[in-house]
């Protein structure tokens, strides 16, 4: 694949065409903050934290590094005054929305923001509406149990009609990717509960050790998508291993 060379904060880097600026930066060990971005999921450009300043044939411009593709001869500044102003402003807004979310507090602190400048509507709010959960559910897991609903300030993530989802498989990828811990998932005994989607799943029990190791719905989904044999999930992730000799 075609290679392109560009400079990020003065350092030159060569990457495959199609790589995004944020990926290129991380190859240089420059970590650009981002909350709505995850390598596995198609970039979205919603949180605006990852904005960087690019200089292209003399003209400077702010772009989201999670979306902007690496270009030959591109000059990128990840910490210019303009960039920091936006990043700071965004963090102020996010912290004011969710004053009690650790990730945001830390990021804010690193930008010198000590307390939320605006009053929170609901101090317990943890969701920043980055949409990662909905996107991973639709694009990667492939069940589309949840989606972004309504718009503007009322925007939130929900199941259809905010009722119990009948397609959710309880895989928990939404919780796994959620940057703020807003997706509340817990395994209790033989049940997995995801409170946000009002769902409850029976966990499969391991024939050998008796541990409840994964939601039956998820295993069933995996069997269908990967077409695996009926009895493929009799043993848990650990016990199945003992059935094979090391090669």
């Amino acid at each position, binding site marked *: *694949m*075609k290679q392109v060379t560009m400079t990020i904060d003065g350092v030159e880097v060569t990457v495959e065409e199609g790589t995004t600026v944020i*990926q290129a930066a991380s190859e240089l060990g420059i970590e650009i903050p981002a909350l709505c971005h*995850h*390598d*596995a*999921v*198609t970039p979205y450009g919603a949180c605006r934290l990852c904005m960087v300043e690019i200089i292209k044939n003399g003209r400077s411009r702010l772009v989201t590094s999670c979306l902007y593709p690496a270009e030959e001869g591109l000059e990128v500044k990840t910490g210019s005054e303009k960039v920091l102003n936006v990043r700071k402003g965004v963090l102020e807004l996010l912290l004011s929305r969710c004053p009690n979310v650790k990730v945001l507090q830390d990021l804010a602190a690193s930008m010198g923001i000590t307390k939320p400048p605006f009053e929170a509507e609901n101090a317990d709010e943890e969701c920043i509406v980055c949409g990662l959960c909905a996107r*991973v559910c639709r*694009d*990667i*897991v*492939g069940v589309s149990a949840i989606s972004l609903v309504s718009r503007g300030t009322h925007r939130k993530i929900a199941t259809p009609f905010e009722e119990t989802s009948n397609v959710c498989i309880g*895989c*928990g*990828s939404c*919780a*796994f*990717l959620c940057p703020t811990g807003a997706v509340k*998932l817990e*395994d209790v005994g033989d049940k997995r509960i995801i409170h946000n989607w009002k769902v409850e799943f029976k966990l499969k029990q391991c024939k050998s050790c008796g541990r409840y*190791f*994964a*939601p039956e719905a*998820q*295993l069933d989904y*995996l069997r269908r*998508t*990967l077409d*695996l044999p009926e009895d*493929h*999930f009799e043993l848990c*992730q*650990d016990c*199945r*291993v003992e*059935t*094979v000799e*090391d*090669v």
Partner: protein
Amino acid sequence: MNFPEIQSKANADWKGLWESDKPLIMVGLATCGRAAGGNATMAAIKDELAQRGIEANVISVGCVGMCYLEPLVDIVKPGRPRISYSHITREKVPELIEDYLVNDNPRPDLAVGTIGEDSVEGIPKFWELPMLKPQVRIALRNCGMIDPENIYHYIAQGGYSGLTRALGMSQEDVIGEVEKSGLRGRGGAGFPTWRKWKEANRSKATPKFVVCNADEGDPGAFMDRSVLEGDPHAVLEGMALAGYSIGTPNGYIYCRAEYPLAVKRLNIAIQQAKELNLLGENIQGSDFSFDVQIMQGAGAFVCGEGSALMYSIEGKRGMPRVRPPRSVESGLWGLPTSLNNVETFANVPSIIVKGGDWFAGYGTETGKGTKTFALTGKINRPGLIEVPMGITLREIVYDIGGGIPEDKPFKAVQTGGPSGGCLPADLLDTPVDYETLTKAGSIMGSGGMVIMDTDTCMIDVARYFLAFCVEESCGKCVPCREGLPLMLDILERISQGNGQPDDIERLQQMGKTIIGGALCGLGTSAPNPVLSSIRYFREEWEAHIRDKRCPAMVCKDLFHYEILSKRCVACHRCLWSCPTKAITGHSLEAPVINQARCTRCGTCVTVCPARVSPIAKYTGKGIATSDEPQALEEVTVHG
């Protein structure tokens, strides 16, 4: 019927087919077409027509060579040019018939191109397509254009007029034409065809034999198969011409058992030719008689070698013998024999009809005419092509082949099969003919051309071909029987990460010895893949031996997979589908690969749904522990 009458009938039939008020539908049903579901398509077409009560002529044709477009269906509608449609699977048939035959919408979105004078809006001209424009079709002239099971189709294209013309010429004149054409053996070595014939003609002993070598053993080459399947009469006519030139009624075709369709079509063709007295006793009233028998090989690569082939026709073990004497003096049953390969024969009729000078008009000083290649490997448009000698590899790879998939960098092209070699990117502008290829360390061979990108490991390729030769060696001579396995052992240990510093030199030494000492063509060329690989890709060999690295990440013992947790969504598809249960981890965790149990089968990579796959490949320093991957070279596998 005399030949003129046959011809006029043929032309009439052909005209009737094309100028009939019924649509003409042609389905590509060579092996590649069938593999792509051509038979189902054919059936579906017949059903659909029946259901709708549409009258049409439906025929099956051979392979046009564009395997990547199969199944191919051509439709000729009255008053419209012939339109080629690609990927017409069973499901697509109804809509195509509905739209084009019923509603006269030519569906440019499904069409590849139009063949013939007029054009259709939105559809390019078939022969103007980038992959066809640089091609010149002589041996393949009829492939995909006619029904190979209908001799009249062949005759309508001017078939057998070469033979009938020759019957009015002296043997010397016929050989003279072939000499003028500069035609050389297409089987690999490139020995001038006319000289074989002249010598066989001169030699006093009788009976003499004409043998067609259709024992296409080179893995990844299939042009002989396509010619036999798509235009069997061209080969028969060529053989008859050879028979006439050297003066013998005896023809043999030695065909691989793996080519049942070719054998079937040859049988039909021979039958039809005999019925029209274009083969058999006193062809067209002349005193020249010629008959062809088909012998089926039993799948031994070595039998591609002349002497071995003839032994096996005689019913003996297919082992080469020392030469001289060459087979033109003492071949089959010790009698004068002219052995040529399929493509060589397929060229002859045109030479006789259009003249040797016409044929010599194509190609280079040393290599006249055209050559067919089976273009395969990491290429966008794999298939069968026929190009004038002297065309550059670049033109073949990029103009005709459409370049490398995903725009990956070109790494090497392998020609000549197990006897050939790999040429690197900086030789892309080499004009293709016998001498240049040999000079570059490969050979023309029968026409296999395998394209490789940066995901191909040259050591692995060399190992593959060497293993092939070890398999196929007849075991008669020591250098081949004993030497090749020793070389193979060294390659094995190199790809396992146990290479010794002097292995490269050792391999080169052994290679020279075998080339010098082996008995037949198989042995003397078997080291080529290794030697050319070392010649052009030495640093890759050293990476394997010195750093225990496989840059292409192919050699299973030299790379490993790891799951980067920050890229993982914990969907556990990989965990549960890993065939060796090498992936572990609990629900809501990013799984981990147990390197001891991982067999590098890559299943995890294929099932991972992530946009940027979290499963990274590492090579070098043996198996790394996941806490120090940055110490290693990482290649991200794009999901």
